[in-house]
């Protein structure tokens, strides 16, 4: 009787071991597929949707952790989840890129024009024997200094955009716009509608 029990135990162990190794292969393949897909589009996606890339990486890590613990079923489920997240990355990155490009195009149309108008006004006021009412010498000096700043920052924003740093470029453009509006208001100039709000 004791011998029969021992044989049954060994048989059960062998069966479970077989089942286990059968689940290991698909889990391994699912993780590899998710990892390969993530690596293929990660660099581009990181520029536009870093949070979503991190979520996909976390899902992949969960799959690897489950695999390391020998929980192949959980590893397969987590890898499938990671693959789904990775699959969405390309479309989400493309959508974000289009959105940022549109925002940049709008700023590129607006800001150089504002800077040129301010320069033109500052040039004329620099020749004036007396400043207009509501513009003190200090305010005018501040406007001149501000103009030099926005000119420099706009150059940096343009370089950032050309280098692929769209978010950085737009952040710089936003600060240029705010400052340009401030200077135009100080100089008694009309602020373009597109720069308001």
């Amino acid at each position: 009787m004791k011998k029969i029990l021992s044989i049954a135990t060994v048989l059960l162990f062998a069966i479970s071991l077989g089942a286990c190794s059968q689940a290991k292969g698909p889990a391994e393949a699912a993780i590899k597929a998710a990892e390969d897909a993530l690596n293929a589009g990660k660099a581009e996606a990181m520029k536009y949707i870093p949070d979503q890339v991190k979520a996909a990486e976390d899902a992949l890590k969960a799959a690897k952790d489950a695999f390391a613990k020998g929980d192949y079923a959980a590893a397969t489920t987590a890898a499938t989840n990671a693959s789904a997240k990775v699959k969405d990355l390309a479309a989400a990155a493309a959508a974000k890129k289009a959105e940022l490009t549109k925002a940049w195009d709008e700023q590129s149309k607006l800001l150089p024009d504002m800077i040129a108008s301010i320069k033109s006004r500052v040039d004329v006021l620099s020749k004036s024997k007396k400043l207009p009412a509501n513009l003190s010498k200090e305010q005018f000096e501040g406007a001149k200094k501000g103009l030099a700043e926005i000119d420099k920052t706009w150059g940096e924003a343009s370089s950032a955009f050309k280098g692929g740093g769209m978010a950085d470029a737009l952040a710089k453009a936003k600060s240029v716009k705010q400052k340009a509006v401030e200077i135009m208001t100080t100089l008694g100039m009309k602020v373009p509608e597109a720069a308001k709000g």
Partner: protein
Amino acid sequence: MADEPVQGKGEDASDATQWHEVQKGETLSKIAERYYGDPGLYNTIFEANRDRLKDPNLIRIGQKLRIP
């Protein structure tokens, strides 16, 4: 109307060009004084509007002038 600088006809929302609509009794000198503090700079406005002004002494009410 003369209290605020105006936008030119057909100007889009991104256009930062500065305009002034001529009011009754205004001259280029008065407009220059208003925007620059110096009536002597009237010629700057005249030169910026050579496409629409033939003579700095001849401006019409309602005319829109670029203010550099």
